[in-house]
């Protein structure tokens, strides 16, 4: 198994970000607003209600997702900032309590090492 195949990007919420600085994570979140000064960052609300700033990829075009709910895959810069590597639309209706309960369960020590990492 190559190193690439072992690379994980676990689902997290806002509270977990400090433990994942420098690592790649998946944040399921709700789009709140775009940064008025720079069109390349936007603010989202994670499944636990915490707000996070996402720095979008610089493609020359402003990032305008179609969906309200997103899954942002990116590298954690600090406790409230993620640098986006990719983004998947999650539709306009998502049960964020279900998402948060799932995220917490994923990181439960009984399961994380066994099923969600190496």
């Amino acid at each position, binding site marked *: 198994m190559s190193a690439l*195949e072992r690379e*994980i990007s676990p689902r997290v919420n806002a509270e977990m970000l400090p433990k994942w600085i420098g690592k790649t994570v998946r944040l399921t979140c709700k789009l709140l607003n775009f940064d008025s000064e720079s069109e390349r960052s936007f603010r989202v609300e994670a499944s636990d209600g915490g707000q996070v700033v996402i720095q979008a990829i610089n493609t020359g075009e402003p990032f305008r997702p179609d969906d309200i709910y997103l899954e942002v895959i990116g590298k954690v810069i600090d406790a409230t900032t993620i640098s986006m590597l*990719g983004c*998947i639309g*999650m539709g306009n209706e998502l049960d964020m309590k279900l998402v948060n309960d799932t995220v917490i*369960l994923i990181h439960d020590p009984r399961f994380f090492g066994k*099923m969600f*990492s190496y």
Partner: protein
Amino acid sequence: MSQYNDSSYYSGGGGGGGYIAGGSPFSQGGSPGGRVRSDISHSLRPVKISQLNKATQAHADAEFRLDDVELGNVSVVAQAVSIQPQATNCVYHLDDGTGRFEARHWVDQESETNVLNWGGLRESMYVRVTGSLKGFHGKRYLNTVHVRPITDKHEIFFHEMEAITATLTVERGPPGGTGPKATAASGSKDVTMTDASAYSAPSTSVAQDQYAHLPKLQQAIVRFMMEQPPSPEGTHVFAIARAVGDGNDAQKISAALDQLMDEGLVYTTSDDNHFTLAN
């Protein structure tokens, strides 16, 4: 969710889901300790890609095992990072946040002229892939039976929960045992997981068929012992008596255990007070 009712993933024999359509789940005549390939092939377990990467194989031709249980078919919900149609098959590179894995779907060229459009699949989309784990020259891949796009995003989180539940069920047996809560839960049509045999080699259900001819007290004893966590010492007779005791005195329970031993279904372990199931 209606797509579950329509999907072949949840349809099929057994009435409770967890089986791939088109086959009878168990061979009735199976020997107690024996497992036939057809039984394994009718199990379907939701897994994470890290579990596929961690599955073990004694040698190149051996079956894959996960949590020390043989893997039958598996179901994965992941992002199709890339889709590469080739001459005879389509290769999906999957990423579900726990690792990357390759899934190969052999397609009939005559019936599908544009593989990329099949099922509306696009790169970066979340998909559900069902298939079996294979190895070829040291590299693993999913030999894919079915791929479909995920339309309701809640299915992604449902799959995480289901994979955890499947792992726990394989480890510890079905939740709730035979109490009223478990009975009510398993009676609900929305519950798609019925017992451990849906995820793994069906030792539980084959064993229940095997014990179906036994008198009520012996069946109750065997059922209680099956629910206990595995232990080298087995189950103490006091625990058995507490569980099946109502109305049955110690002599009846002792006689039932003797009969089970005569039939070769249980045996004593560290001393005459500890019993374990023969298979």
